[in-house]
């Protein structure tokens, strides 16, 4: 009987000692805040458009850190979802359609200056202050800074803002990816047909 008692005592003692060690470690290695949020935020495209139903990219990053799904960002698109999946070690999911579809080409906003009435509604709407202007003065979009979030289109009372695709110039043109290689059988078949 006493051996069982000794056994139990020993185990209990061990447990107490180990518990103490863990407790000490918990205090010593206490972690404040959540640095993962910054890393998630760095991957998001910073358009601050709110299509993910959060008021900006940082709030969405915080939500993701808290467990929100990663497929809610249309401007980020597929590549952002994959990057987030890599970072967090989760499965990449297809883009959640209810938050908008990924645009094929990046767009920027352009104000038709003839029609602008200088009401400043679009300036208030732009989440990154990329529209220059003042009350009763001409408004214009700083094209280099515009992220194409299209939050400015709706508030305009005279509907003078267009979303246009970014122009391809010699500075931003690059080669397309070559078509994927085919297997030898497919190659023979293609040649036969032609």
């Amino acid at each position: 009987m006493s051996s069982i008692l000794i056994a139990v005592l020993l185990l209990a003692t061990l447990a107490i000692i180990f518990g103490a060690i863990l407790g000490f470690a918990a205090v010593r290695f206490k972690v404040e805040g959540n640095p993962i949020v910054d890393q998630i935020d760095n991957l998001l495209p910073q358009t601050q458009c709110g299509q993910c139903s959060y008021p900006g990219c940082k709030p969405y990053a915080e939500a993701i850190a808290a467990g929100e799904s990663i497929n809610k960002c249309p401007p980020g698109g597929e590549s952002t979802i994959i990057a987030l999946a890599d970072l967090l070690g989760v499965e990449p999911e297809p883009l959640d359609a209810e938050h908008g579809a990924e645009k094929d080409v990046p767009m920027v906003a352009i104000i038709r200056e003839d029609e602008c009435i200088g009401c400043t509604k679009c300036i208030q709407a732009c989440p990154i202050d990329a529209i220059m202007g003042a009350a009763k003065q001409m408004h214009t979009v700083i094209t280099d800074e515009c992220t194409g979030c299209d939050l400015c289109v709706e508030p305009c009372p005279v509907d003078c803002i267009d979303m246009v695709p970014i122009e391809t110039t010699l500075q931003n043109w690059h080669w397309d990816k070559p078509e994927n290689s085919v297997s030898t059988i497919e190659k023979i078949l293609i040649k036969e047909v032609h």
Partner: protein
Amino acid sequence: MQTITLHSFDGGIHPLENKHQSTQTAIAQLPVPAQLIVPVGQHIGAPADVIVNVGDSVLKGQTIADPKGVVSAAIHAPTSGKVVAIEQRELPHSSGLEGTCVIIDSDGHDQWLEEISNGSQAISDYLETDNEILIQRIRDCGITGMGGAGFPTAVKMTVQNLTIDTLIINGAECEPYITADDMLMRERALETLRGVQILLKITAAKNCLIGIEDNKPEAIKAMEDALHEVHGEHHISVVTIPTKYPSGGEKQLIKILTGKEVPSGAIPSAIGIVCQNVGTCAAVYHAIAEGKPLISRITTITGESINQPQNVEVLIGTPVKHLLDFAGFKQEKSLFQKLIGRKAKADSKPRIIMGGPMMGFTLNSDELPILKSSNCVLAPSQKELPANDIASACIRCGLCTEACPAELLPQQLYWFSKNGELDKAEQHNLADCIECGACSYVCPSQIPLVQYYRHTKGAIKDERAAQQKSDRSKIRFEARQARLDREAAEKEAKRQARAATAEKAQAAKKAAAAEALNKQTAEEADGNGNTNDEIKKPEPVDLEKLQKQLDAAQAGLKKSMDKIAELKAAAAESGAEADAPIENLDVFEKAVANRRDKVKLLALQIAEAKKSAPLVKKEVSRDDIEKKLRAQKDRLEKTKERVDLAKEQGLDSLPALQKGLDKQMQKLKELEEELAQFDKAGA
């Protein structure tokens, strides 16, 4: 020839040279075309700024666009004529995009600019001239690298802060079909060497090596003969190198001739070497010695679809069609079409390649112009250069890695490019790929490897730009948040301030109302209006003021009445008739009436004030009295001085002053009495 040890670079390939076709005849002069299309962005760096207008007449060699910024080059009119348009035209570039071009209709005279044709621009003692002048001339003449890349030579030659110990002249011309440099060296070796001398002087290099592949024996001989003619030139050597593609690549040539490797991501000047093409050297000579800007170049026109393959001296901006017509171009029908006799494909475009078979690109049309960097126009037949087969799967044979002259891992780069693993591609030094095409040439699966790398390089650049943009957006967003917060805080502060003052006003009003109520109740209580000495009133001051005003008004009234009495007395004395109108009497009477009204009003006000607020003895302290006393004494002194002055000068104001003085003395006495009383009371 100086014996130097030749080294070798890893990899490389030996494609069929196909150079003999175009070296059978001497360099031909291409006749001036009817219209020239001159793009302003033919070089690495910012496109030049156009300085002529539509309708201007230009002469050969006249500057039509100035360099924009440091890394840029000037553009000149290749022939005399008229500028008919400055517009966006398709450029001979793999993207097919448009750029600003100056369109010149030639007038057939081909007339040089006056200052060039009369020789005034010539610098004959170029070996003694300042480097700055030489470099400026190179820049003004729009010289850019003629080997194919088109880097502004003046920028490359700006090496005064670096030590250059070897100048390497690139006469290798390793790409198949191209023989432009070969013919240049054969026929114009002396000019080329003189250009080399100029560059040697500018860089102050210790020695100069001219690398020529051994498949050009005539060119080697011509250059060596010319070297003898250039007296006393010990530092220049002509070096024969083995034929291998791509030994004409800058970094590869440096390795062969010096054994040194240019570090990854760096340029040759980092290891004390400058490399220039032979064509550039000849152009430099013409610019310095004759003042002629870069307006023409030697271009090879070759391929089985060309009747007479040859080298031509062609003006920059000449449409390719002109060149093809000159050399004779036969459009090809495929064997299949020939045999079966079926109609040719509706959109069969002749395949015209600008550049060589390894690094050239297919042109979209033959209306595109020749640029400063166009060393070859190749029109092959299908048999000669068959179109690439459909790519099959990579079999991991590793031939591409064996062939790479830049010691990269093309197979790995292929896998990364294919799957979009951009960061891995960057880590594997994709940026060092010179896009020579040796890997694609040897690939048994015919995979277009170079296209993958070009795409990936672009994708990496895009990603970096997107990252920078999103960083900027983040900063802007945060700045905006800060601005909104600040505005909200300011608004809040203002609102609170207003609320505070409103509260105070409210409180004051309430207190006044409460007091009035109190006073009324007190009055009702004891029927006396003068109790409640304790209640401090804001009225006493006003009461005093009103009292003062009343006194002043009464005094004024008295004055006016005196005045009237005086006038009446004066009138009576002067013996006027009793009822005759006296001057100004009515004025004075009116004044009197006004003043009487005022007095009445003031009296009423005082009565009101006294009613609404019981008189309260103002708490006067001793200090107050003393202060007043002192002030009064000062005033008295001043008045005394004025009186004395008036006495001396006999001024009319003396009686008034005297009166004032008396008043003040009285006031002083009163104050002293008050003080005495105060002391008595206190004591």
